[in-house]
């Protein structure tokens, strides 16, 4: 069985210089370039024989005129040096260049590129494991550059190496990964085609022929190269053959065999002829020999050793039941050639035939080789898997780290937002509350003022207007020339005057400064008389200076109103007003031994509503004695 990769050679040349893209326009001889040039000259002096050095230097000076950019120029110089170097020392140069990478303006791109060149070099020398390692390293560096095209390319190459070691399941995984990267890039069509074709090969290797045919068909659809299409068709037909769908396989091979393009491409023609022959033989057990012999003839003519091995093996198969000696002969030939070109699987196949149809000795050799190959392949497979897995793990780790960092950032951001929101809403609520409070206070004040106005108006009407009217009537009907009448008139007017003075006094402004206590005491004593004793308890026990003005005014007014009320209605003879400070609270108790207000709620409302309002305006509390038959008792308190 022969599986081919028709694209890779096309692709390689494109790639080699794709990373030398011109994205810098600096023409200056930068310091890093100087450093690199020094390093290069040293490299040349160290490694090249004198005669070759001259050539290279000439070439370099020619190139530097049109390649002055450090990164690009290093790449050019690199190729010039490599071109004339001894193949064995090339890896050493690569390593020197690798050390130069940090001096260039594109450290990662350069490092990854050199690693890939190392991989290619190892691949050419058939150091596949080494090559796989370098491709993998290169891929990791390209990942830092987020260059999905080159990551994808490296993965395809890695899959190819895996397939060389029959690690089909590994290559399937690698190719699936490669497609993820390649599909991100717009220039990756060729690599995608290659990857899909290789997936077909991988599934063939895994004996999942349905999948294989699916991928081959897909690859064929996106291929516009005619001979490539034919090779893919050959591969599809081989799948049918393996599935023992001989008619389908034979039909396809026949069509291919008759196609002009195939006829012109002799090696492909040999391949198709060989495959058609073996298909026919498998179907009826007798035909197909001519086709196989034709293929062997062509291959022998073209010295296609790999193809010849297949032909020998097929012919050995053909003669197995008819002429065992001939089978052994072909198997012998296949074994020799397979050993020569290092095709282990074919060698095993040949050994198996030899053991059956020739010398029994081969049996032993077969098992020995088979075991060691199995073992070797398993080891390689594990090695690849581990390397891929490690990288993957590394990538996952860093991805997980990124994700967790992003998560943390988002979380911090959210917390920040919540905090800011909270603070803003607290501030807003605070200000709104303050505004509301202010408005309420303003309203309260306005209401207070309004009530005061009403009270004064009522007083003017009730107390003053009547007296003024009476006096007017008196002046109208009496002869004021009479001294007695004049005296009465003046007395009446004096009474009225005193009443206006009282109204004024009750509504006068209150000094809230140092003389507040004097003023308060005077006001209190003003309501005392021979008939009424006003007793004060511990009024000095309170530091009036530290109490807010508005609260002092309320205390003054409330006591004044209580006393006015007392004088008018209570018939009390003793009034006790006691002051007390408990913690931060000022407590003031008023009590008299008058008639009290009775149980009439309405009466109380009228008389002391004002007092209540005033206390509430300073957030104070007021309680009236619940047993009001004996005098009036009012307690009020507020925070100082």
């Amino acid at each position, binding site marked *: 069985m022969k599986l081919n990769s028709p694209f890779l050679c096309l692709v390689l040349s494109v790639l080699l210089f794709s990373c030398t893209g011109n994205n810098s326009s600096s023409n200056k001889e930068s310091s890093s370039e100087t450093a690199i040039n020094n390093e290069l000259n040293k490299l040349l002096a160290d490694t090249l024989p004198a005669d070759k050095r001259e050539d290279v230097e000439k070439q370099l000076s020619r190139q530097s005129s049109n390649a002055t950019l450090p990164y690009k120029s290093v790449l050019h110089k690199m190729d010039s040096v490599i071109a004339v170097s001894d193949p064995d020392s090339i890896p050493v140069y690569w390593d020197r260049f690798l050390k130069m990478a940090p001096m260039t303006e594109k450290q990662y791109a350069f490092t990854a590129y050199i690693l890939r060149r190392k991989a290619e070099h190892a691949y050419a020398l058939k150091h596949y494991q080494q090559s796989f390692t370098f491709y993998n390293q290169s891929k990791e560096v390209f990942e830092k550059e987020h260059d999905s095209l080159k990551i994808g390319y490296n993965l395809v190459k890695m899959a190819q190496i895996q397939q060389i070691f029959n690690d089909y399941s590994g290559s399937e995984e690698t190719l699936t990964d490669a497609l993820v990267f390649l599909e991100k890039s717009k220039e990756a069509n060729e690599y995608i085609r290659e990857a899909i074709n290789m997936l077909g090969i991988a599934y063939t290797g895994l004996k999942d022929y349905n999948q294989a045919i699916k991928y081959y068909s897909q690859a064929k659809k996106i291929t516009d190269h005619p001979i490539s299409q034919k090779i893919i068709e050959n591969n599809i037909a081989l799948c049918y053959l393996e599935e023992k769908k001989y008619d389908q396989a034979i039909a396809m091979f026949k069509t291919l065999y008759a196609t002009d393009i195939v006829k012109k491409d002799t090696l492909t023609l040999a391949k198709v002829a060989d495959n058609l022959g073996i298909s026919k033989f498998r179907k009826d057990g007798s035909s197909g020999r001519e086709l196989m012999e034709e293929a062997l003839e062509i291959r022998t003519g073209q010295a296609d050793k790999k193809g010849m091995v297949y032909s020998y093996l097929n012919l050995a198969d053909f003669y197995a039941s008819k002429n065992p000696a001939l089978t052994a002969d072909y198997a012998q030939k296949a074994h020799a050639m397979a050993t020569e070109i290092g095709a282990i699987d074919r060698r095993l196949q040949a050994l198996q035939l030899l053991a059956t149809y020739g010398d029994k000795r081969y049996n032993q050799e077969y098992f020995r080789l088979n075991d060691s190959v199995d073992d070797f392949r398993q080891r390689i497979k594990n090695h690849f898997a581990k390397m891929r897995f490690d990288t993957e793990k590394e990538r996952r780790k860093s991805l997980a780290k990124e994700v967790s960092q992003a998560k943390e950032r988002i979380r911090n951001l959210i917390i920040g937002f919540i905090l800011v929101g909270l603070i803003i809403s607290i501030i807003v609520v605070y200000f709104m509350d303050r505004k509301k409070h202010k408005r309420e206070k303003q309203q309260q004040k306005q209401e207070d003022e309004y009530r005061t106005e009403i009270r004064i108006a009522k007083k003017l009407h009730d107390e003053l207007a009547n007296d003024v009217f009476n006096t007017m009537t008196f002046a109208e009907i009496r002869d004021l020339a009479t001294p007695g009448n004049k005296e009465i008139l003046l007395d009446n007017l004096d009474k009225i005057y005193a009443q206006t003075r009282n109204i004024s006094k009750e509504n006068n402004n209150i000094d809230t400064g140092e*003389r507040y206590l004097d003023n308060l005491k005077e006001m209190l004593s003003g309501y*005392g008389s021979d008939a009424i004793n006003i007793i004060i308890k511990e009024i000095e026990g309170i530091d009036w200076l530290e109490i807010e003005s508005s609260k002092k005014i309320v205390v003054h007014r409330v006591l004044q109103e209580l006393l006015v009320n007392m004088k008018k209605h209570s018939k009390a003879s003793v009034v006790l007003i006691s002051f007390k400070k408990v913690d931060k609270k000022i407590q003031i*108790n008023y009590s008299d031994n008058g008639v009290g207000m009775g149980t009439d709620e309405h009466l109380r409302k009228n008389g002391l509503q004002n007092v209540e309002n005033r206390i509430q305006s300073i957030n104070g509390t007021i309680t009236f004695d619940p047993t009001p038959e004996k005098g009036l008792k009012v307690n009020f308190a507020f925070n100082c």
Partner: protein
Amino acid sequence: MFKKILIAEDIDSIGLGLSTILEKFHNAEIVHAKYCDEAILKIRKANLDQVPFDLLITDLSFEADHRPTTLPGGEDLIKAVREHQPGLKIIAYSIEERGYKIRYLLEELDIDAFVWKGRESSGEVIRAIDTIYKSGEKYLSPRFNHILQPASLLEIEEYDIQLIKYLSQGLIVNEICEVFKTEGKSAKSISSIEKRINRLKLYFKARNTTHLISIAKDLGLV
């Protein structure tokens, strides 16, 4: 007698009434000012002209109108006068009744007389002028005589309340004395406690101790 008198008064009729009476009793030059700012300007001008006033009669309350003022009231005018012409005799002529205010004017601002605007007050102004001119003593309307002493209130302490409580619990004076002694209260002797009880009877208008307890009970003390 005073030769040059300034009357600061915002109500025309009162100013006019005053000057009528002054002219009747004194032969003096009388100048009127309706604002405190105007008054202080006139005082300063007279000083500059070397014909200073020798008496200021001023109201305390001036009604505010459209004019912006630096001296809104009589109290401010008096303070300003004390700065520009400390020796000027001043009579405050006002309806102010608050004792502490009047005391403040007489004692702190050192005015010479306070005459309360009342029925007989124009005559009182003449009496005030006579008093301060002849004797140099201060004059105060008789109805305020009591206020020169700070308000005399009936004040009690927690101690008194305690005393009444013990009495209501049926303790006799001797026992109360003992209790107070153990509590370290000030009035320790029996006589001082008796004095206290008598004073409390007076304050609470009680005719005997029983009555005192009754009244205290009404007041919610016990």
